[in-house]
């Protein structure tokens, strides 16, 4: 049962009052007369005895508490409070002792915790300082890398600008080529159409030329036939001439024979003379015919020779025309193929134009992205610089924390916590 000191003093006062009252009564019953002046002394004695008893207990308790608080003041928290108070009626002193025991335990735990935390803080500060140093080194490397990256980005921007310019020039060139390919396609299509028309016209002309050549060849054949007939007429004329000459010779011989016959051959001589005249006339006519035939034959021969040459020319001309026809077909085929190729080139150039336009757009996007990257890299450089400064500040702070942790550890070294079982603790 808890009883406060006030109650205990009240109970003491009541005991003193009871002693003052009761002692004379008890003595009176025992037959001892008690002088009235003895009553204060009894009260003093009883009060003094109770006061001594209680004050002695309090003094011991306070001395032990003083020892405990002195040890705490020296930082020795290892010793237990160890104040044994066996009281049926605990009071505020017991509460104080328990409070001091709790305070010591709490201080011990606190100091141990602070020591542990201080050690950890010191270790963490060391780790932090090393990490900060590494971070600082990394930041410097990152800063150098970022600076190099910034220069590369600037160079990249220049290259992108040059590439963009080159691609725009290429785009312009491709666009011009596309226009020219379009014009070439138009020309090729027109050439193809004209080639087809030209081939058709040439085919008609070739057919007409073939008809002309066939007519010329028929004329050549007729001339050759005429030449053969003229030769035959010449042979006949030669035969007539030969007959005339023979007749002339016969008439001459008949004249000679008639002359040799004398008067009897005179009539025969007349006939022979007439025959000779006829033969001469026939010979002269035959000679004229032969001359004419010869001239005709000469002319025919010349015409035939010319016709032969013409025939050769016509044959060569027909071969040339066939070659021309084949060539025209090849030309038409080649022009058609060229038109097809021109169309493919035009379509390819158009596709290239669209592709290069997309490429120009993409290059613009890349340029803008490169500019954004440049700005971002510049921000990164500034951030890196600031981070280096921050890291340096962190290094300073880490050093400060380390020093504070060491100072705290130094302070905490004054406390000896030990443990409840009396084991020493630093």
């Amino acid at each position: 049962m808890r009883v406060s000191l006030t109650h205990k003093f009240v109970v003491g006062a009541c005991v003193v009052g009871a002693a003052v009252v009761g002692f004379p009564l008890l003595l009176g019953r025992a037959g001892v007369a008690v002088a009235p002046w003895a009553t204060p002394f009894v009260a003093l004695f009883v009060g003094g005895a109770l006061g001594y008893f209680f004050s002695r207990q309090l003094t011991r308790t306070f001395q032990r508490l003083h020892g405990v608080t002195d040890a705490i003041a020296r930082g020795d928290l290892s010793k237990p409070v160890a104040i044994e108070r066996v009281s049926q009626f605990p009071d505020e002193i017991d509460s104080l002792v328990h409070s001091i025991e709790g305070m010591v335990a709490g201080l011990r735990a606190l100091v141990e915790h602070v020591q542990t935390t201080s050690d950890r803080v010191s270790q963490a500060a060391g780790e932090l300082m090393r990490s900060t140093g590494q971070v600082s080194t990394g930041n410097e490397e990152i800063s150098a890398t970022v600076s190099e990256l910034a220069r590369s980005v600037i160079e990249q921007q220049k290259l992108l600008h040059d590439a963009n310019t080159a691609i725009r020039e290429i785009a312009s060139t491709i666009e011009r080529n596309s226009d020219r390919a379009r014009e070439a396609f138009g020309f090729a299509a027109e050439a193809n159409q004209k080639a087809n028309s030209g081939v058709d016209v040439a085919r008609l002309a070739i057919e007409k030329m073939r008809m002309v050549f066939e007519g010329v060849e028929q004329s050549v054949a007729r001339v050759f036939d005429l030449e053969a007939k003229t030769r035959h007429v010449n042979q006949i004329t030669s035969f007539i001439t030969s007959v005339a000459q023979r007749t002339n010779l016969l008439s001459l011989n008949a004249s000679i024979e008639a002359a040799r016959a004398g008067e009897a051959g005179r009539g025969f001589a007349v006939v022979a003379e007439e025959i000779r005249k006829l033969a001469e006339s026939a010979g002269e006519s035959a000679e004229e015919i032969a001359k004419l035939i010869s001239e005709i034959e000469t002319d025919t021969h010349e015409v035939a020779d010319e016709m032969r040459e013409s025939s050769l020319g016509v044959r060569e001309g027909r071969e040339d025309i066939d070659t021309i026809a084949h060539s025209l077909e090849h030309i038409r085929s080649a022009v058609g193929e060229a038109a097809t190729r021109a169309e493919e080139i035009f379509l390819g150039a158009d596709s290239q134009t669209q592709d290069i336009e997309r490429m120009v757009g993409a290059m613009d996007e890349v340029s803008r992205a490169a500019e954004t990257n440049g700005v971002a890299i510049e921000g990164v450089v500034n951030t890196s610089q600031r981070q280096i400064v921050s890291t340096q500040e962190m290094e300073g702070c880490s050093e400060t924390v380390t020093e504070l942790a060491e100072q705290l550890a130094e302070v905490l070294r004054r406390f000896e916590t030990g443990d409840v079982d009396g084991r020493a603790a630093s």
Partner: protein
Amino acid sequence: MSAPAAVAAEERLLTFEVAGSLYALPIACVVEVAEASALACIPMLPLELAGVLNFHGDALPVMRRETLLDLDAQELPEPSHVLVLAPRPNGGAKLGLCADRIEGLVVGDGARSVGAGPVAERRSIDGRLVFVLDAERLVARAAEAIEASLEWSE
């Protein structure tokens, strides 16, 4: 060049051309005019001098023109006719004379050679110079040439 029908035979001449010159023989001395053909060789005689011709189955000796008329052989063309000469009407030797061309019959008398040559007379007929030959002299000259050639070969 034509002759009247009533002219006598002995009054007519046969004209022919040799080496560009015009010659004439009396028609009475000419048996026939034959066409020239290849000559066959006479034994012991060179073909450049004379040869034989098939004349109606008989061998007709033919003397070269250059031999009888004293011509240059290299300038002569191939003959077209052969004149068959018979100086004597009642038989006797016949001789062939090559001619380049037979001109025809003209009116005129024959002549006899007084010299060694066969040409008896030079006469102008129709404005042309005609050498009138002596047929007997031609035959005699041919015989002399053959004999000389035979003697030379022997």
